[in-house]
């Protein structure tokens, strides 16, 4: 401690490495090694070969699941954007009290666990639940099955992930200097063109941030699709869980996990090159 604090502007020494060591060693043993384990299992179970990857990458079932996951994640991201942007805008431009109230709501949602929110949707969309009751009230007697469908799963995911999008966009919106907007207006920009040419580009970083975050989380989403989704339209995380849980097929499960991990890493690397990863969770 001595040398580092008293020579506040001085050069490197062994001290930072000592401070990092406990965490570094811990992460190595309990984070890196398990991941390596997954990689190894993917090529050694049932025997040393690439057969698992062959099946995962070429099998019709798996391809369908991957595609479904990708499309669902993209769809959820777009919906989160459609839902989140107006709300963030409302938060940034309302009276302080209103803004605070909405912020409170979003924060509450953000801090409530995925599980609890998934359950809420089960209640809302259940056959004896309020949504069905509402539909019956307006005269639809032959009410459709809402739960355990792609609809319920996607809707819940949008609800659960929207706060991530909202927070990201909101924080960018708050930082926009109102003087910029005023000067654009004074130069003749109004209404839609003001939005399109000035405001929207200024909020673009928030949109990019939020979208990448939501997309990546949605790719690996387990809880909600498993509990609320249709068993015929699984997402990748659910399938991995299924392989491990039901079939103890570690090889297959690991191979799928590695593919999921790879896709996630690629997306994040592209993002990192362009924006810097720390901004994602800033």
């Amino acid at each position, binding site marked *: *401690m001595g040398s*580092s*604090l*008293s020579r*506040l502007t001085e050069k490197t020494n062994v001290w*930072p*490495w000592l*401070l*990092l060591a*406990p*965490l570094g060693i*811990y*992460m190595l043993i309990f*984070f890196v090694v*398990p*991941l390596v384990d*997954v990689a190894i*299992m993917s090529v050694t179970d049932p025997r040393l070969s690439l057969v698992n990857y062959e099946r995962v990458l070429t099998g019709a079932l798996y391809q369908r699941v991957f595609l479904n996951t990708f499309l669902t994640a993209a769809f959820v991201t777009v919906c989160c954007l459609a*839902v989140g942007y*107006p*709300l963030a*805008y*409302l938060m940034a431009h309302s009276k302080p009290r209103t803004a605070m109230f*909405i912020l*409170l*709501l979003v924060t*509450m949602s953000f*801090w*409530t*666990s995925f*599980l*609890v*929110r998934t*359950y809420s949707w*089960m*209640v809302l969309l*259940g056959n004896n*639940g*309020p949504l069905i*009751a509402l539909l019956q009230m307006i005269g639809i007697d032959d009410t459709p099955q809402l739960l355990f469908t792609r609809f319920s799963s996607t809707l819940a995911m949008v*609800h659960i992930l929207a*706060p991530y999008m909202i927070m990201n966009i909101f924080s960018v919106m708050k930082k926009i200097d109102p003087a910029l907007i005023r000067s654009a207006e004074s130069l003749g920009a109004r209404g*839609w063109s*003001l939005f399109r040419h000035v405001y929207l580009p200024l909020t673009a970083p928030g949109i990019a941030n939020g979208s990448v975050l939501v997309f990546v989380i949605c*790719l*690996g989403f*387990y*809880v909600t699709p498993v*509990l609320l989704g249709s068993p015929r339209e699984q997402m990748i*995380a659910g399938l991995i869980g299924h392989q491990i*849980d039901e079939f103890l097929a570690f090889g297959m499960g690991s191979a799928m*996990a590695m593919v*999921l*991990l790879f896709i*996630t*890493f690629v997306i*994040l690397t592209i993002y*990192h090159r362009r924006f810097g990863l720390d901004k994602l*969770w*800033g």
Partner: protein
Amino acid sequence: MNTFMRWAGILVTIFIAAPLVIVVPMSFSSASSLQFPPPGYWFGYYRAYFTDLDWLIPTWNSVVIASATTLLTMLLVVPATFALVRHKFRGKSVADLMMLMPLAVPHIVMAVGYYSYLGDLGLVHSHMGVILAHTCLSVPIAFLVLSANLKGFDRNLERAALSLGASPTKTFIHVTLPILRPGLIISALFAFVQSFDETVVGIFISGRNAETLPRKMFDSIRQEADPVIAVISTLLFFLVLVGIAAPYFISALRSRVPKPSRSPAGAH
């Protein structure tokens, strides 16, 4: 554009709020299954929760695991944060990135890894195993919060302390830590909540002996959608509400306390 945004915003607000609010009346429902509107209201399910060991034990497990995870996380993260915020060294940017790695890995992937790895170590279905896994998952968020705090720390305060005769150790104890305390508490809180709510890894590795509350809830939702879950959801929801609203109330209360008496004449 303005009015469109406004109305869209209001609709979305309802969308966000409705699911959160719905569990509260459900928890008081007297129906034996999910039914809305509830046929009647009673405290039965609250009583059921607080007397059923099948629910209380997982709750306790989660509290214990989250607490231990928080402790371990903070012990590892605090020195690491100091190293990364205050020192320059080769490989610093890589280390910075490594801290955030667990956030980039989907929990299902970690679950597979931990299931196998901790299984080999004989730590599956044990508190220890879950704690070790959850710590990895809590590290990034604790780091992000703490490093933001530390980056905003005024170094002149430490220079002042040194100049006034405090050795580097005394400076750390008397000046750095007390001022950092709010940041440390919030960082710990994030780590705690992250562990308490963590579902996916818990499903796979907590098992019979160390069953976490999320795992029990997950199983229960899957099997029978027990209304007790509405009770737990409501309780958790109110905990979050209190947690978020508390700082506002405290500062509102503080500002009501009368200021110290007017200064004597002459002082500026």
